[in-house]
Every structure is written in C-alpha cells, then in structure tokens.
C-alpha cells in the first residue's frame, strides 16, 4: 500500500452561498465515510482561507515571521485527505470521487516510501 495526498485547490475569496456549500459538505462527509469503510482513509481536514496563513522562514540565520500565504496566487489548498491505495489508479479513482463531490480540482501526489 502506498500513501497519497489528495489536495483540494480552492479559489480565494468568499465561500459559496450556504445552499451551494451545504450539499458539498454532505457529499464530502459521505465520501469520508466511504473511504473509512474501505480502509483507505488515513487523515483529512479542511483549512481556513489562505489569508489566515503565516509564513516562517530562516534568512541569514534569523527566523522571520510574515503574513502568508507563501505562494501568491488566485487559488490555494483548501483542504486535503491522506489515503492508502495499492497504486495510482486506485488513488485516482478516489480523486475522481472527491472532485465530483467537491466540484474543485484535486491534485494527487504520492508520499515517499517510509524507511
């Protein structure tokens, strides 16, 4: 089994209206239950919007803390799920279900093997 990170890319700005958001949340919960029932779920969570991010970095030996996010852009990671899957095709099948549930693009990345 390999571990995969499924990241949700979300446009910045106000969240959708409740009547749009509510069914999405319902579908996301149902998918999480499905992942758990299949033994594929490891961890998942949604994030506050990117304007709440803080960046910490080392510059010339000093640690500098600044208002985030780190990468400027119109979209940021809005949430993620870590899953267990036998191969990329299985991971992509979960990603397809996620994309349908959330209606946002999902990026799938493999974790390095643990040694």
């Amino acid at each position, binding site marked *: 089994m*390999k571990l995969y990170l499924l990241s949700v890319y979300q446009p910045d700005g106000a969240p959708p209206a409740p009547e749009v958001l509510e069914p999405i949340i319902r579908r996301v919960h149902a998918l999480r239950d499905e992942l758990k029932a299949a033994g594929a779920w490891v961890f998942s969570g949604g994030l506050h919007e990117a304007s709440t991010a803080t960046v910490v970095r080392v510059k010339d030996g000093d640690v500098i803390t600044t208002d985030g996010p780190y990468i400027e852009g119109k979209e940021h990671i809005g949430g993620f799920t870590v899953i267990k*899957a*036998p*191969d*990329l*095709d299985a*991971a992509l099948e979960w990603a397809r279900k996620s994309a349908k549930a959330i209606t946002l693009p999902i990026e*799938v990345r*493999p974790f*390095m093997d643990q040694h």
Partner: protein
Amino acid sequence: MPEPPVGEADIERVFRAEYGRAVAVLVRHFGDIDMAEDAVQDAFAAAVQRWPSTGIPPSPAGWIITTARNRAIDRLRRESSRDERHAQAAFLLANEPSSDEEDAVPDDRLRLMFTCCHPALAPAAQVALTLRLLGGLTTAEIARAFLVPESTMAQRLVRAKGKIRDAGIPYRVPGAQELPDRLRVVLAVIYLIFNEGYTASAGECLVREDLCAEAIRLGRLAATLVPEDLEATGLLALMLLVESRRAARATTDGGLVLLAQQDRGLWNRRLIEEGQALVRLCLRRNQPGPYQIQAAINAVHSDAGHAAATDWRQILQLYDQLMVIAPSPVVSLNRAVAVAEVDGVEPALAIVEELALDRYYLWHAIRADLLRRVSRYQDAALAYRDAIARTDNAAERAFLQRGLETVRPH
C-alpha cells in the same frame, strides 16, 4: 550444410522485433523499468558476443528473456548484501518456474503499453516512453525524430519513469469499464507517432519512414491484442492505407505530390489489400468509430484506379458520419475538400471560411487551393503565403511555393 553467418543486421532485426516483449516480461518480473531495460540490454550485448559463433537460437525471444532474467537475478544478488528486499526478490525469482515465459508475452506488452500511455503522463512522455520501451528506439533516435536535444529527451524519459515508479502507476491492463477510454490514449499515441513520421513537422524529409514502420508495428500489436475493440483494427487499417501511398507521395527529389496527381501504379497493393480487408471486417461488425471511418475514406481512395474515378459521394457520406460521432474543425476542413468535388468549390469555400483554424497550415493551404479554383488569385496568393509561414517542413513549403507561383500575376 553450414548456416549462413550471423551478422549485425540479423541481431538488429531480432532487437527491433523482440526488445519490447523482453522488456515487458522483465518489468512484470521485477516491477522496475530501469532494471528491466538494463537486463535486456545486457542480454543483447551477450547475443552480439555469442550468436556469431553459435548461430541465432531457435527462439531468439526466449533466449533473450532467459538471459536477461538471469543477468537481472545476478545483479540483484550482487546488490543483496546492501538490501534485504533485493535478496528476497532474487531468491523468489530464481525459484520461480519459467516454462511459460513466451506464452505470457503478448499480455505483458499490452500491459506495458497501458503503463506508457497512462493519462497521468504528459502526451510527449507517453510517446517517448512507448518508442523507448516497446519500440526499442534509443534516446538519441527518439530525440532526433522529435527534433529536441538528446539531453532534453533523456530528461523527459527519466522524469516519466520516475513518475511511474514514485506515483505507483500500475503495470496492468485496465478493467473492462476503463478499457475503452484507456485504449483511446494508446491508439492516439500510436497515431501521433505515425503522423509525425508521415508528415515530419519540420526538417528536410517529407516522411520519416522509421517512425511510420514503428507506429504500424505497434498498431498491429494493439489490433492483435485487443481484437474486440474495432478502433484498434480501424487505426491499423488507416495507417496501412496511408502508408501504401508513400512511394507515390514524393518525387525523386523529395517534392510533395497530392493524391490527385499521384502515379497510382506506385501504390503498394499488398498494404492496400490488407488495409481494405480490415476495413471490410470493421464494416461487417458495424461498430463505427473515428479511426474506422477514416480508414474507410482511405479505402475509397484506394479503390479508384485514377483520380477522376474517385467516389467522392461515398467519401462525403463517410465524412458526414465522422462529423456526427467525432466532430472537429479539422474533420470539417477535410469534409470541405469532398464537398468541393461533389457540390462545387463555392459551397466548400463557404465551409472553410467559417473554421477557426488560423494556426493550422493545411487550413491556409486548402483555402488557397479553393480560392485559386474560383480565380480569386490575389486572395489565394495571400493564403499560400500564410500556409508557407506555418510549416517548417521543406517539402511542404516547396509544394506551397509552387502553388503560389501559379496565382501570381504574370
């Protein structure tokens, strides 16, 4: 009686024919593409040493696969002192029965094809991997074929193989539900290789025959391994019929000759017969798809003993069918060429003018030809110039230049 001596050309032939099979089997055994490639290359290096004195063995593929497998196991054993997992793999493999090596082969090549053409890989990487792993082309050959520096192509291959390994792209034929979509990608890659060979997008030669031959070899493999999907058969038929006209398509000095002006005596009858037989098989099964219809269109052209005998009505009907199941501006452009023959040049020109294909040199070339035929010479000259500006293929440019000369004021 002594056997004729085994030359480099004989081994090269075996290499071209068997490299893909051997790599596919080894990938199944070891689950690692680099290891499989190294082992198969070792085995061919051994063949170059041995075969000139021993002769080519009765089953060259079997010999290569067995030798490659043994080399890989030796290598794993050497490395096993460092890595317990390698030791275990070497033990398991050394004790696995291997009598069915060759029987399992076709399936293995199909699996490898689906791995190389996985949608998680970029199209350029799919093409490069397919030519490298299934075609046995060297990185330098693939780089030359696609006019990129060898280092760029090497990087592309390393990156793609790295993604297969790290992301866990499986080595397997997709399930029935996914198969049609995944096979479309495989066929698209094969057709892309063929087209790149047929009209090299740049360079001095009109055709790069080695790429066409490789695409047909891969298409034959796909059609054989997935006979139930008629699009694979359709693509093979399409490539055979287009390839059959190769000798007639260029003058001795490399100039381009259009279908209507070709010496049909130069057409390869053997390829036409095979292609037409496949088209008839597709028609009988009646599950039309884009490749099958394009093959049928080419089969109609192949039927005509001279250009004037072409059944343009049937061709137009086939394009109408193609526009229903796979509409695209390029199909519409090709259909317009048939419209010009059946309904006249003006209606064809009206269709062409509506298409948003400004970046496609053939749109300009076809438009130029139609404008010339309705005596709008100034507009035709501009269109020829636009077409010339949009292709880097020397033969195509020379052809368009000749067209331009005919519409210039005298």
